[in-house]
């Protein structure tokens, strides 16, 4: 009975999609917001990477919420997983190659991650992408040496202050009489590292937050023992 209703539901969904497919015209409508942003972003925001301009300036509110969702998922994950039980079984030792490789990788990943975060307003990339690389930089040593635990207190400290930093920059704009999350600071020269006002600062906050959060979440998942 349940399979029948599921199959019927899928059939309905498939028909719906086929109908949409039929009537959709490809590439016909001009993106109103997108075109306008492409024209004015360089002067209004000063970032060479327009996607960053959208992520941090035009739709900065969405980015704040995205950060919050990640934070909430990490908090809820911590709530669900709880503390690792004492005497939990550990993964077996990982061998020399993995350990040596992880030691070599760590500084490389740090550099790449920080580079991508800092150049988010100039080249493709930014806080989220760089943050994930940073998270892997801090997680790979845990994979290489099972049993080493992450310092969760430091992680939650970085997490909290980075997120608060993002909102504070947004609130600072309000103190100056502008709206929440208006871009601040001097825009500088387009294409230079120090340009686009407060956008690089926002991305640094994002990168630190995402990096610490993901690393903490992954560490917590790996510390929770598998069932026997």
């Amino acid at each position, binding site marked *: 009975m349940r399979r029948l209703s599921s199959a019927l539901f*899928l059939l309905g969904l498939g028909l719906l999609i086929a109908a949409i497919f039929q009537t959709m015209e490809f590439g016909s409508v001009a993106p109103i917001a997108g075109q306008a942003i492409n024209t004015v972003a360089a002067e209004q925001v000063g970032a060479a*990477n327009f996607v960053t301009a959208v992520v941090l300036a035009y739709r900065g509110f*969405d980015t704040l919420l995205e950060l919050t969702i990640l934070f909430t998922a990490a908090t809820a994950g911590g709530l669900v*997983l709880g503390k690792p039980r004492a005497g939990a079984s550990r993964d077996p030792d990982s061998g020399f190659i993995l350990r040596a490789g992880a030691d070599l990788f760590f500084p490389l990943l740090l550099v790449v991650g920080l580079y991508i975060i800092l150049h988010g307003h100039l080249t493709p990339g930014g806080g989220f992408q760089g943050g994930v690389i940073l998270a892997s930089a801090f997680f790979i040593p845990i994979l290489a040496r099972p049993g080493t635990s992450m310092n969760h207190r430091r992680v939650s400290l970085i997490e909290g202050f980075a997120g608060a930093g993002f909102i504070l920059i947004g609130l600072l704009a309000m103190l100056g009489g502008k709206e929440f999350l208006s871009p601040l600071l001097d825009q500088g020269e387009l294409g230079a590292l120090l340009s686009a006002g407060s956008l690089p600062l926002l991305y640094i906050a994002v990168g630190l937050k995402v990096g610490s959060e993901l690393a903490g979440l992954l560490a917590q998942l790996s510390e929770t023992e598998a069932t026997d």
Partner: protein
Amino acid sequence: MTMDTGLILYTAAFGLILIGSAGIVLSTHLVRIIFGIALLEAGANLLLLLATYRAGSAAPIIVEGRIPAVMADPVPQALVLTAIVIGVGILALALSLALRVQRAYGTLDLREVRQRLEQDIAGEAGIDLPSSSDAPQAVMTRQEGQA
């Protein structure tokens, strides 16, 4: 890119959505259902990206002062960035929950989990299920709990 490439991409997006939905609705193992969610989200993200795609457009980035003639729409790229991060967060939470369910019930088969869930709810409330074989136990635990 030609019109045909657009068709292929749209088919891919809708196909992913269908496959993901099929996975969620028809699977009986919780981890497969979570994979289905991941596929479904991938399909929806792809569809969002394709929404205002224009053939022959360049990335909306100013490189060395050169502004491309036809720039792609930056908005869906930002939207999909957000959507992917949301998906990652939810997936991580789903796996944590699956871990705890596995630890509590010893199984991740959907039918068994539903059954155990019903038993748990009924047990907490102190009522017995119609076809439950441990009805006497439920009564005894209730009485023990009240004593």
